[in-house]
């Protein structure tokens, strides 16, 4: 008898898994930036999405059907996106679609999703739905219902906690989609805080030497310096601020790149004192259900594939995006785009990036971008960044793990 039990269980398990396999796969289609400027992040996001698919398939699939991800490389080129999504929908006959990474490649896919009335979950776009106003659009970046303002609000709220309060600010960013959006949001927050703008300029994306820019900012002697940049310029500006020994009370901003292991390890101690936008930090206050387990599984896989070995930025959100789609489909019980969209609108989701509820425009109903201050970084190794205490969360108050150290020039080292 004892010997028969395991075999019966095994047979049952086999039957269950065979029934899932025998079912037509549930196809989820998307384009992803696997090459081009955002290729590194795109590949990391893809790995997270594959991990989700594997997790679901191990549990018997979704609606009893195994998940199959159907994806193509959009090369971070918006012109490729319409063709790829029409292929996914018309030739590959996918059941669901999600997006690639970033506004530039999300926006061209929205009209196609609208034409086919597809529920469309997207990954880190800065409000591309503002013009389309598509009611089945959703976005996983945690900046809140007004993404540009929500993205930058924390920097200025942290600044206004200083005593005496700051009075002046310098705004600088790259000539590109995201930095312009961030600067627009920053101007709104600057106005709300009653700060005087001493410097408000952008630089071409081809800029490599940021020393003249930082010197020009220094000449205006602002209390705050807010930067909106892409990875190469984030590195350049942080380096220049250290070379010029920038004197200001708070320095940082919505700088893309400092969230990745590459820049964290490359810049190392140069990041000390910087106040930057993050979406995850390994702090004791940030305990989203399952995020640590996710990262523990992700990190060795990413290291093997030479992807972002920390995975604090995009991967948990890519995984969460799929969790939300999966949960909604499971609850609806069938592939009904209208009902899936309705379900996502009307429920709160528990994901590896915390609890998520969506606003009417498809953004997070309540934003949760983090503003952290980098501290105590001694070397250029990776291990330091995995430990708490080096990315102290200053804002929002609910997740706060420490107070701002200021002025910047005294806490730079």
């Amino acid at each position, binding site marked *: 008898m004892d010997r028969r039990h395991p075999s019966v269980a095994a047979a049952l398990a086999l039957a269950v898994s065979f029934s899932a396999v025998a079912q037509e796969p549930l196809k989820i289609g998307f384009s992803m930036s*696997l*090459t*081009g400027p955002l290729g590194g992040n795109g590949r990391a996001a893809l790995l997270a999405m594959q991990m989700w698919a594997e997790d679901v398939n191990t549990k018997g699939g979704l609606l009893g059907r195994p998940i199959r991800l159907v994806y*193509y*490389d959009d*090369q971070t*080129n*918006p*012109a*490729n*996106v*319409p*063709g*790829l999504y*029409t*292929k996914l*929908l*018309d*030739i590959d006959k996918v059941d669901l679609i999600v997006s690639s990474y970033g506004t*530039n490649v999300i*926006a*061209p896919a*929205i*009209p196609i999703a609208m*034409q086919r009335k597809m529920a469309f979950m997207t990954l880190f776009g800065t409000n*591309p739905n503002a*013009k*389309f106003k598509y009611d089945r659009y959703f976005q996983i970046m945690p900046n809140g219902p007004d993404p540009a303002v929500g993205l930058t609000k924390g920097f200025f709220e942290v600044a206004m906690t200083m005593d005496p309060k700051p009075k002046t600010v310098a705004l600088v960013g*790259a*000539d*590109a*989609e995201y*930095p*312009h*959006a961030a600067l*627009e949001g920053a101007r709104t927050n600057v106005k709300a805080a009653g700060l005087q703008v001493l410097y408000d300029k*952008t630089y*071409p*994306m081809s800029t490599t030497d940021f020393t003249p820019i930082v010197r020009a900012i220094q000449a205006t002697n602002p209390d705050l310096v807010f930067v909106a940049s892409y990875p190469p310029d984030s590195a350049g500006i942080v380096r220049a601020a250290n070379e010029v020994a920038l004197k200001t009370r708070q320095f940082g901003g919505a700088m893309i790149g400092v969230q990745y292991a590459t820049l964290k390890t490359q810049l190392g101690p140069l990041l000390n004192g910087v106040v930057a936008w993050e979406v995850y930090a390994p702090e004791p206050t940030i305990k989203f259900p399952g995020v640590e387990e996710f990262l523990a599984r992700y990190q060795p896989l990413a290291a093997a594939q030479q992807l972002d070995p920390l995975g604090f930025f995009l991967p948990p959100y890519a995984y969460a995006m799929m969790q939300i789609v999966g949960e909604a489909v499971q609850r609806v019980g069938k592939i009904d785009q209208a009902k899936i969209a309705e379900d996502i609108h009307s429920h709160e989701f528990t994901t590896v990036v915390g609890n998520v509820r969506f606003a009417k425009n498809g953004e997070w109903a309540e934003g949760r971008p983090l503003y952290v201050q980098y501290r105590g970084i001694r070397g250029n190794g990776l291990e330091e960044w995995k430990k708490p205490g080096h990315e102290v969360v200053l804002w929002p108050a609910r997740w706060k793990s420490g107070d701002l150290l200021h002025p910047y020039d005294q806490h730079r080292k």
Partner: protein
Amino acid sequence: MKTSSFTAIALCTALLVAGTTSALVTNDYFFSASYTVLQFVVLATAWNILGGFTGYVNFGSAAFFALGAYSSIVLDKLFEAPITLSILSGTAVAALVGLGMGYLTLRLRGVFFAIATLAFAEVLFTFVVNWDYVGGARGAYVVLQGRPPLGFRSFVQFLFAIMALMAAGAVAIARFVQTSTLGLGLAAIRDDEVAAECSGVPTLRLKLVSTTVSGGLMGMAGATFPYFLSYVEPHGVFSLSYAVNSIAMPLIGGMYDWAGPVIGALLLGGLQQVLQVNVSADWNLFLVGALLVVFVTIAPHGIMGWTFRRGRRARPT
């Protein structure tokens, strides 16, 4: 064949293809991919009028393409102009800018002219990035609303039909340029500009016609781009890939004949579409690069030159 007959046949063929495919093909992917290939037919044909027929290498194709795209955006923002008006204005603006650029730069030759066109693209890019009315660095949205016109099932089908007509028109213009006395003058400039000038060819005037027509056609290709993509931002529309493909396609097809860029665009553009969804993008780029190297070394005059030479060899003496 007379130019008028060729033009009529080309336009009728385009209409027939657009009509038949719209009736028979039900998936939009076909139209989306074909739109991109035909867009490159227009771009490559336009580039070849200046680069192939006249011998002036233009690295600023993306700038003329962007002029067309941004003309449409301006008209859309002003009064949601119909697409036909956008195409006409995009063509006109790019043609005028082509004329102006030609006037300023055609004293330069060879690599210096090529660098000037590259600089022109950079100047225009900087201008657009700082022009907030057209979205600046954030880009601009053009949202097509309502039902597609003329009974088409989807907007992409409609845009494909328009692009097919534009491609036919561009090819007819290129053929006219090649076979007319204008083409002979341009060929004389390409072969030896000093000798052409000494022989009484009005070189500056012909070169200005060449830059105007070439620029105008590139602008025409770009005019429908915002409708196809719905979202245009400077880095995408000024992408170097437009400049590179505009040169590579005539190079592969053959630069001395109107059919060369068409063959090159259909081959390379079609191959890129196939590889994009069947092979990884790394291999896609590798294969395109390899193809270019092969053609430049084995068939420097492209497919047209190669077949013409083989035909001549095979002919009994």
